């Protein structure tokens, strides 16, 4: 097998084209800026400003737009070229594009369906009116689909992310596997310092992030909401106490907290396991109070719903906190639904613990603001209970800022997970998650940069996507 170049045979046509378009774009952008600067003082007071852009500045701006789309078209051509030509013709880029084919199909399907029905989809549908929001959504869903296809079906990875193959240590991207033939017998993005496939590790790492980050953020929100609503609603001593505790956790440097919670000695002493016992109670509490507040006028249905929730969530709770190998392992094996693999529970708990106080502060502020509104007064006059007002009057009206913060916070949680990996905490050292891979790769960074750069860009693109998504959501929710 021959080593792959970045663009392969397609590159002979497309590379000069890309260079040409980029040069034209640079010249046009420079011209537009210069002409715009010259035109700006004149535009301030003159009537010409009303006539819209025209003349030389207008032409330059048109050129910028055209060349920009030409660059995008060439970049898409690399990907499409890789899809339609035989394996290897499109170089590394073409092979990557072909490997991600299921993701492209899923992305196209979700965009097609969402745009077709966007008027019926509420805030989610409105996202497709904003370019920023759509780019963010595409980036996020790219990683979500990649993670799902990898984790559930094992589709995207080309090699086993934990296997080392001799002779491929620190090899550059596109190196063929010695002795192997047929398609996918390359290390597409090179090998790391233990001769494992960088591409497969990056893809497998997305599954770890997508499993932990949204769920941990959701738990942090449940804890923050369950404590923040009463603190903001009642105020007084309760508020003072809870705010003090939240500020106490926030005054901790995050990394010190991680070191204190995640080291093996701490895991052995059982502190994180006990914290899991406490923190995972909050979602059950939240759901039960939510249902009870709504249904307490109809005792039969209330009993049914609350009982079902208690049974289902309670069982999940017990099997979650009961872990073999920690001081809390009481559930018989037949009843234990699942065991969270080593380290992940601890990482999960510490990430929830770090995020919950910030959510608490946001919810508390929103609750203090909203409790003065007329509809809350109306609900009080109707004789509704305090928890009904908090959960069914205040919470739904605070959803806008909370949804935006949820997106941002998933991104922040991803960064925190990376930080944990970067310091080699929590997850096992050969785990393919992005933080650990960056940590392993940074030691040889100045000689073989690819092993650290690939997961770094993966993490960057996911967090950027979440930030853009939050920005798009904020813009669209402010519009009405």
């Amino acid at each position, binding site marked *: 097998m021959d080593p792959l170049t970045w663009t392969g045979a397609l590159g002979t046509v497309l590379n000069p084209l890309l260079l040409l378009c980029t040069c034209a774009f640079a010249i046009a952008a420079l011209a537009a800026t210069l002409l715009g600067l010259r035109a700006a003082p004149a535009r301030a007071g003159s009537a010409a400003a009303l006539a819209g852009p025209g003349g030389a500045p207008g032409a330059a701006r048109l050129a910028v737009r055209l060349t920009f789309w030409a660059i995008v078209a060439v970049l898409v051509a690399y990907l499409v070229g890789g899809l339609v030509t035989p394996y290897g013709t499109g170089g590394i880029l073409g092979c990557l594009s072909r490997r991600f084919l299921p993701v492209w199909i899923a992305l196209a399907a979700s965009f097609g369906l969402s745009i077709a029905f966007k008027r019926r989809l509420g805030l989610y549908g409105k996202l497709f009116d904003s370019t920023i929001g759509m780019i963010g959504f595409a980036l996020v869903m790219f990683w979500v689909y990649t993670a799902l296809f990898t984790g559930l079906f094992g589709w995207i990875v080309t090699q086993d992310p934990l296997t080392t193959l001799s002779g491929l240590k620190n090899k550059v991207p596109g190196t063929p596997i010695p002795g192997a033939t047929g398609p996918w017998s390359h290390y597409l993005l090179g090998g790391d310092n233990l001769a494992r496939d960088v591409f497969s590790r990056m893809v497998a790492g997305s599954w770890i992030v997508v499993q932990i980050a949204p769920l941990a953020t959701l738990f942090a929100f449940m804890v923050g909401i369950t404590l923040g609503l009463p603190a903001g609603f009642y105020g007084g001593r309760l508020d003072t106490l809870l705010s003090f505790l939240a500020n106490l956790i926030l005054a901790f*440097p995050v*990394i010190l907290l991680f070191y204190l919670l995640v080291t093996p*000695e701490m895991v052995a*002493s059982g502190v994180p396991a006990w914290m899991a016992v406490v923190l995972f109670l909050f979602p059950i509490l939240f759901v039960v109070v939510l249902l009870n507040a709504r249904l307490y006028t109809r005792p039969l249905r209330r009993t049914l719903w609350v009982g079902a929730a208690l049974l289902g969530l309670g069982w999940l709770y017990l099997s979650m906190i009961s872990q073999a190998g920690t001081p809390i392992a009481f559930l018989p094996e037949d009843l234990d639904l699942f065991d969270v693999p080593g380290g992940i529970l601890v990482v999960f708990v510490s990430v929830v613990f770090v995020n919950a106080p910030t959510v608490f502060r946001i919810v508390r502020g929103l609750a203090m603001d909203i409790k003065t509104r007329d509809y809350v007064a109306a609900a009080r006059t109707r004789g509704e209970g305090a928890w009904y007002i908090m959960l069914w009057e205040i919470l739904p009206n605070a959803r806008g800022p909370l949804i935006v913060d949820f997106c941002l916070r998933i991104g922040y949680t991803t960064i925190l997970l990376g930080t944990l990996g970067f310091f080699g905490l929590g997850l096992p050292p050969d785990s393919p998650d992005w933080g650990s891979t960056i940590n392993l790769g*940074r030691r040889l*960074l100045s000689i073989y940069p690819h092993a650290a750069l690939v997961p770094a860009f993966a993490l960057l693109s996911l967090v950027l996507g979440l930030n853009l998504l939050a920005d798009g959501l904020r813009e669209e929710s402010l519009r009405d």
Partner: protein
Amino acid sequence: MLRFIAGRLATMLLTALCLTLVVFFLTNLAPSLERVAKTQIGARVSDAEVESWLNRNGYGGPMLARYGEWLGVMPGWTSAAEDGGLAAGRCLGDTAAEAGAPRYCGVLQGDWGTSTVFRDEVATIIARSLALTGKLMLWVLVVMVPGALVIGVLSGMREGSRTDRGLSTLSILSTATPEYVSGVVFIAVFASSAVGLRWFNGSATSAMEQATFTNFTLPVMTIALYGMGYIARMTRASMAEVMTSQYIRTARLKGVSFRALVLRHALRNALIAPFTVIMLQIPWILNGVVIVETLFNYKGFGWTLVQAASNNDIELLLGVSVVSVIVVLLTQLISDLGYVYLNPRIRIS
């Protein structure tokens, strides 16, 4: 006003007390103490030897009593030598029993204890590392604050323009790039010996003695970049809000030129909110400092924190946490006071 400050200082004291108690509890759990003993006397020792070492070195007593010793409200531990005299003790130092050793020696007496890893006074280590980190922070602030304010004002003065959209996207990009990503990318691009430009050094160890443009640019840029986007976005929001206010409209109708409008009328009010944000960012920068100092091998406060935490160096960790709590709460206090000072519409009652 004085009552407000006194109240905040009392809260700070209480927070520091609670926090050190938590740190003390977590670092003094049995498995952690065992590790401390094993790093001191070797890994292959029996449980009994560990036990006796812990007892001889003052780790034996009840946890709260030992916290009291650290704080200086309980008499320091002593252990008897075989002949009946004092062999060692918290307040005795390395040399054998001295006659005039004080009974109490804790934080209240100004004694922060000794680091088990660096074998030095905690106060000395923290002072040295804080000075190094202070140098780093100074340059970060020098780069970050003006940069962020200029970007924020430029994008906020004409909301929705192309400049605004471009700069806002850049700000989002910078907030989405954690330090360990931008640091890795910077090293690969600017310091890699294989493919990069080799403009700067990938390590800042030499910057501890003498910071130059070559060895200090990358760490400073890495930290500044992450905070810059957030401050710029807050400045932009504040600027955009000011630009829609009544007095700006009046000034514009009066015929004030756009330049004078922005510089003389809008800017002063638009910079009140970013001041708060900048002060509140400092604890976050501290967080970034830990990552960057580890990545660039710069032995400042963050590096010390990592060393202390990964070796379970109890007294150094306690000192580090006290310092970081004071930094966090002091910046909060300054931001509140500064906000009141800058914005005469708000008064503390």
